[in-house]
């Protein structure tokens, strides 16, 4: 049975007369002329890119906050992190609003807070995290003299904005921005995503942290700033995070089971195996082990960053294929495999 016959996408191109599936002895599956029983999300490129930079912002904030709490005061690191988070939090809403069918109504997202709607939780988290990140970046800018040297406002900003307190307050919200991108996908009827509800948030968070660490070390390397220790810590954390990410991806594949097939389809396999498994995991890990050098670190960072983006595209594209496959949905929504209310978390 050909893929096209099942997907319902190219049914008109099929030469065979297509009666009901039951009449075709080659087709054992039951469905309505291969037409997808659920509708896929319309999301185009803005969403995977948003998932990528949102995760990056969350990870960068997490690293700088942990550094701050452990008393590792590296100005260059704080600066790089604060401005990174600010830029990601400016770009995120732009991408999200761009993707709306009615962009001028974006404020309706703030009409209600619905804890049961992952999209609502995401919007509110972005709002809170974005504003806190804005305050933190404003303080950083004042400290860096970007708001003028003898400016009263700048001095007030440095004095009045409680850096440590706001960082800690923003941490859980930021982490939620990172992980909720995954939970948002799993709270749908798409088999590949829904099946993996347990690891979807964690894997997106780990991947986001990995891209953030890579980004920070890339910036410090390229600007030749930051303490030697910061870079050492970044590399060590990168290696460990990549390991965690690898474990989570393997666990995800195991959980998805037969519904992980779209990740290995002709369209997605370059993104998933080439981009994610090799580009974001194996290659950077190999480059970061053994003797350290600036060149190797820069290449590893670039690979992990691009790989993180590929991973998000792979998940979104894979989900689309999964939703368009009647066989996948019907096997999933037929009993044992579907999530049950009485299932433990």
């Amino acid at each position, binding site marked *: 049975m050909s893929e096209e016959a099942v997907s319902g996408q190219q049914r008109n191109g099929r030469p065979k007369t297509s009666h*009901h599936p039951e009449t075709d002895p080659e087709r054992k599956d039951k469905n309505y002329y291969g037409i997808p029983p659920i509708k896929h999300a319309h999301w185009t490129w803005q969403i995977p890119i948003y998932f990528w930079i949102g995760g990056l912002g969350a990870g960068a904030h997490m690293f700088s906050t942990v550094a701050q709490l452990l008393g590792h005061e590296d100005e260059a690191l704080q600066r790089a992190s604060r401005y990174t988070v600010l830029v990601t939090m400016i770009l995120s809403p732009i991408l999200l609003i761009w993707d709306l069918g009615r962009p001028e*109504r974006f404020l309706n997202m703030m009409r209600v807070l619905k804890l049961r709607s992952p999209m609502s939780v995401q919007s509110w988290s972005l709002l809170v995290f974005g504003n806190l990140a804005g305050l933190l970046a404003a303080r950083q800018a004042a400290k860096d003299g970007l708001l003028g040297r003898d400016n009263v406002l700048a001095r007030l900003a440095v004095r009045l904005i409680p850096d440590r307190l706001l960082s800690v307050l923003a941490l859980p919200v930021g982490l939620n921005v990172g992980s909720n991108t995954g939970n948002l996908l799993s709270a749908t009827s798409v088999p590949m995503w829904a099946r993996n509800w347990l690891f979807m948030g964690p894997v997106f968070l780990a991947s986001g942290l990995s891209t953030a660490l890579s980004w920070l070390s890339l910036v410090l390397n390229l600007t030749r700033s930051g303490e030697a220790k910061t870079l050492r810590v970044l590399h060590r*954390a990168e290696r460990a995070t990549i390991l965690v990410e690898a474990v989570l991806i393997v666990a995800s594949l195991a959980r998805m089971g037969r519904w992980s097939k779209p990740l290995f389809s002709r369209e997605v396999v370059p993104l998933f195996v080439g981009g994610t498994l090799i580009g974001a995991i194996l290659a950077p890990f190999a480059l970061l082990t053994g003797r350290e050098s600036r060149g190797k670190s820069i290449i590893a960072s670039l690979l992990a960053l691009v790989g993180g983006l590929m991973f998000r595209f792979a998940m979104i594209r894979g989900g689309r294929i999964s939703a368009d496959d009647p066989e996948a949905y019907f096997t999933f929504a037929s009993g044992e495999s579907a999530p049950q209310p009485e299932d433990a978390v």
Partner: protein
Amino acid sequence: MATGFLTDTTVCIGCKACEVACKQWNQLPADGYEFTGDSYDNTKQLSGSTWRHVAFIENPKKRRLTGDVDLVALAEDVTEQLPGGAELDALGRWAFMSDVCKHCVEAPCQQACPTGSIIRNEFDNVYIQPDICNGCGYCVPACPYGVITQVPEDGRAFKCTLCYDRQRDGLEPACAKACPTNSIMFGDVEDLKELAEQRVAELHNKGYTQAYVYGTPEVGGTGGIGGNHSKFILMDEPETYNLPKHPFLPQEKFRGGVIASAVAATVLGAVVAWAFKD
């Protein structure tokens, strides 16, 4: 009072009057001239611009009808005696089913909607407020039956309103009004539930033991959805009508995902803190 539909597919003749009445009353745009080549049904599926869809299901006696087929001989050759004295020729039979939004009791689309645009109105129907929807499209992959869809030209999501406007004026929905065989019944969900049970019992008595109600917490409205206010009487497996047997409420596991993410965040935090150790 909660209102809903009961669609009895056993009496549907596939005239598509409901589809047309719905398009006309709700002023829905055409979907274009598509020719599927699959059956006489060229509508294919429900969408933001098609709120009733009549599926045409061919049951040609498990025989492969390709190549040289003598249709006249097949039509004259009575192969099966149906309960109640009806005869079935070798061409098989048609099943029709007028599909519509299920108006779920715990509606996944409603839970997904971040703007609060999707509400339950005073008739306990799942209703999208068109002046609030901002077209985020998150309700679309949430619906377990592929009902709700974003209309690209408009940007917003649309689906069956159960003729909210007509109900407010004390009228029944346009599709139910137009249906010539009373395959589409409209009324109080409790009454319809009783009606459905009676009808299924009647069919069982007549020998059609495969008849059952779809849209109960046991079949079709499962997994936390709590049943549907728009039910169907079906004669074949749900998948044949492009319906899931055991759908689930997608938000059911959101809390679990958040807890798992919090654990993961703690682990990753510990990993980063460990990296600082000299």
